[in-house]
C-alpha cells in the first residue's frame, strides 16, 4: 500500500516537503494561532517568525535576538554576567538539538520551506525547458565559505555587536532582514508587508534592498540552478556544526566503480562532488541536506545508505535505480512528461 503511494524515496520526500511547507507557512492557521509558542521556537529550518501564520520558527531569529538583547547587553555590564544570561540561549540550542538529533540535516532537505520553494521552482524550470546550470568543483569551493561568513557576521557577530552598543540597533537581526524565506513565506500567505522596503534608516533600507534583490535573484535562478540559496544559507552552516552529533547519517562505502560512474554527483542538488569521489566521513559533506537523491541514483547495491543509529533506512540498489531513472533523470528532468516550453530550435 505504502509502496503504491510512495513508489520512490523522492516521491515520499516531496510529499513530506509539501506537508511541511503547509506546517511552516500556514501551520498557525491550520493548527491554531498560538501553535508557534508550543513546538520548538528553534527549528533547524527556515520557518519564518515574520510569517504570521507559521506554526514554528527557525533557530536563527532566536540566536540573533538573544545575542542582541541578552548576551550583548550583559557583556557591556560585564560584572553582572551570570549563568542565567546564557540560560535562554542554552535552552534554545538544546531545543534545537533535540529536534536536530532525530533528523539531522534532513531539516534542510525535507522540512525547510525555502528549500521546498526552490525545488518547486526548479521543477517548473524543467517543465519550461530551462537549462541546468551546474556548479563545477572549483566554483563550488568558492561559494562554500559564504555560508560560514553569513553565519559569523549576520547571525552571530552583528547582533552581538548591536547588543553591546558597537553597532546600530537595526543590526540586531540583520540576517532576518536579508533572508529570502522571510519574503517567500509571507508572500505565500498573501502578506505584502515584508516585501515592502523599510525606509526608516539607511541601514534598514540597505538591508531591505539587499534582501529583496537576493530574493528576486533566487526566485529566477532557481528555475535553472538547483537550490541556489541553500548553498549560502547560514542555517546550513549552523546545522553543519552539529551534523556529526546526530545518529542520522549518510553513509557511503568504498567502491571501485565510483570513480568512473559519477551519477550520484549529477543527482546531488547541492553539487557535492565529494559524494562521487570520497567515502566514509568525507562523503557526508557539510553541504549535504540528506535529501537522499545520491542514494536513489546510485546504481549499485548498498553503496550509499541513509542510516539511523546504524540501522539502514534507505540504501541504493540496482533495481530501484532502474525504476527511478525511468521517471526522472539524475538532474531532475522528468521522463515521459510534458515539457510546457521546449527550447526553440
Amino acid at each position, binding site marked *: 500500500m505504502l509502496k503504491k503511494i510512495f513508489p520512490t524515496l523522492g516521491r515520499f520526500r516531496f510529499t513530506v516537503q509539501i506537508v511541511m511547507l503547509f506546517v511552516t507557512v500556514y501551520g*498557525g492557521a491550520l493548527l*491554531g*494561532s*498560538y*501553535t*508557534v*509558542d*508550543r*513546538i*520548538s*521556537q*528553534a527549528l533547524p529550518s527556515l520557518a519564518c*517568525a*515574520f510569517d*504570521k501564520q507559521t506554526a514554528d*520558527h527557525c533557530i536563527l531569529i532566536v540566536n540573533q535576538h538573544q545575542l542582541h*538583547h*541578552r548576551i550583548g*547587553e*550583559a557583556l557591556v555590564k560585564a560584572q*553582572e554576567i551570570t549563568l*542565567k*544570561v546564557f540560560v535562554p540561549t542554552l*535552552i*534554545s540550542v538544546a*531545543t534545537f538539538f533535540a529536534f536536530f538529533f532525530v533528523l539531522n540535516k534532513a531539516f534542510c532537505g525535507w522540512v525547510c520551506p525555502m528549500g521546498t520553494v526552490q525545488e518547486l521552482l526548479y521543477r517548473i*524550470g524543467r517543465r519550461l525547458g*530551462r*537549462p*541546468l*546550470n*551546474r556548479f563545477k568543483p572549483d566554483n563550488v569551493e568558492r561559494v562554500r565559505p559564504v555560508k560560514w561568513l553569513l553565519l559569523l557576521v549576520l547571525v552571530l557577530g552583528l547582533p552581538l555587536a548591536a547588543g553591546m552598543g558597537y553597532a546600530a*540597533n537595526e543590526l*540586531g537581526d540583520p540576517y532576518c532582514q536579508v533572508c529570502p524565506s522571510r*519574503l517567500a513565506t509571507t508572500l505565500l500567505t498573501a502578506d*505584502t*508587508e515584508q*516585501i*515592502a*522596503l*523599510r*525606509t*526608516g534608516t539607511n541601514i*534598514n533600507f540597505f538591508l*531591505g*534592498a539587499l534582501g*529583496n*534583490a*537576493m*530574493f*528576486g*535573484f*533566487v*526566485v*529566477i*535562478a532557481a*528555475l*535553472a*540552478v538547483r537550490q541556489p540559496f541553500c548553498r549560502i544559507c547560514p542555517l546550513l552552516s549552523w546545522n553543519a556544526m552539529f551534523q556529526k552529533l546526530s545518529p542520522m547519517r549518510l553513509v557511503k562505502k568504498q567502491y571501485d566503480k565510483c570513480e568512473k560512474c559519477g551519477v550520484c554527483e549529477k543527482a546531488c542538488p547541492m553539487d557535492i562532488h565529494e559524494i562521487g569521489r570520497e567515502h566514509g566521513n568525507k562523503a557526508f559533506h557539510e553541504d549535504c541536506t540528506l535529501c537522499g537523491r545520491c542514494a536513489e541514483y546510485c546504481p549499485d547495491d548498498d553503496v550509499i545508505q541513509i542510516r539511523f543509529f546504524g540501522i539502514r533506512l534507505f540504501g541504493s540498489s540496482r533495481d530501484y535505480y532502474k525504476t527511478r531513472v525511468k521517471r526522472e533523470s539524475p538532474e531532475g528532468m522528468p521522463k515521459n512528461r510534458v515539457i510546457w516550453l521546449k*527550447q526553440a530550435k
Partner: protein
Amino acid sequence: MKRNQLMLGVLLAITSASAGAAESAPSATESMAAMAHSGHDHAAMMGMGKPMSWTAYPTLKVKSSGESRERMVAIVVPQNIAADGIDAWSNNLIDENGRRRLPLDMAGAKLDKPTSGGFHWLAAREEQDSAVRVASSVYYYGERGAANPTDMFMHQKHELEIVPQPYPREHSRYRANEDWKFLVRFNGQPLPEQKIVLETSNGSRSELISDAQGVVVVSIPDDFKAETEGKKAGHGRPGADFVLAAEHADGGKNYLTAFNAAYGKSAFDQRSIAMGLGFTLLGMLGAVPLLRHRKAKKNDAPEQKAEA
C-alpha cells in the same frame, strides 16, 4: 571617568524626576474630572487606581520590571479603578498558578513569571452598590512549549467580558489599520448587538456594535501624528494604547468592562512597496542570464556539450 559617570547619574536623576512630575501633574487633574462621571473618587478611596489622562475607562498598565534580559517580573498598575488586588489567570489553568490573586501595593501588583509562562489574563474588579467595573488586559511571558492559551481566554472570568479572538501571538502585536476580532459576552453567553466603545491614547474614539455571535471587528485606527512618536512599544517602535469598553445592565446591576492593550504604527509605516518590488525585480533581472541556453564552446567536455 568616575566623575563623568557621577555627573551622568545626577543628570539622569534630575531628568527622570522632572519628566515624572511633568507626566503626573496634568494627568491627575484631567482624570479626576474624567472619573467624576461615575460619581465618586476611586483613586482617593483606595490609594490605588492611579489616574490615566487619556481615558475614563478602567485600565491596567503593565510594565516589565528590572533588567530587560531578566523579564521575570511584571508590574500591573490599575488605573481609573479602585481594586484591592489583581486576578491573574495563566495559560495553564490547571497549574497551581492557573489563577492567582496578586496583592496591590503602592507600586502596583507583581506578576512573577510562573514556570508555565505564556499568556496571562489580568483583571481588576470593583463593585460599588449596583455598579460592577472590570479592567482587563493580557501580558505575555515568552516561553517555549507553553500551553495553548485558547482555553484560558475562553474560560469565564467575570460577568461581562471582552475577549480577544485571538490575541496577537509572539512576534505579533496590534497595529494601526488592522482588523481584530473580539467576543463580547455576559455570564459566558455571547452578547449580540452590544455597543462597544473604542478609545485610544492618540485621541480617537469610535463606537461599534457586536454581531449576532457577539463578535465585534475592531479596526485599529491609524491615528499617529507625524510629529509625535508616542511611547515605545518594544524594540524601540512607537506605540500607543487603546481600550475597548462595554456596558450592560442586568438584574438591577450595571456592569462595565474594559479591555486595554498597546498598539503600534501601521505595518506599512516607513515602508515602500514600490521600492521593494523594484529591488526584487532588479534581482530577478540579474538572474535572467541563467535562463538562457548557452552555446557549446570548442574546449567544452563532451558532457558539457551535451548539456549545452
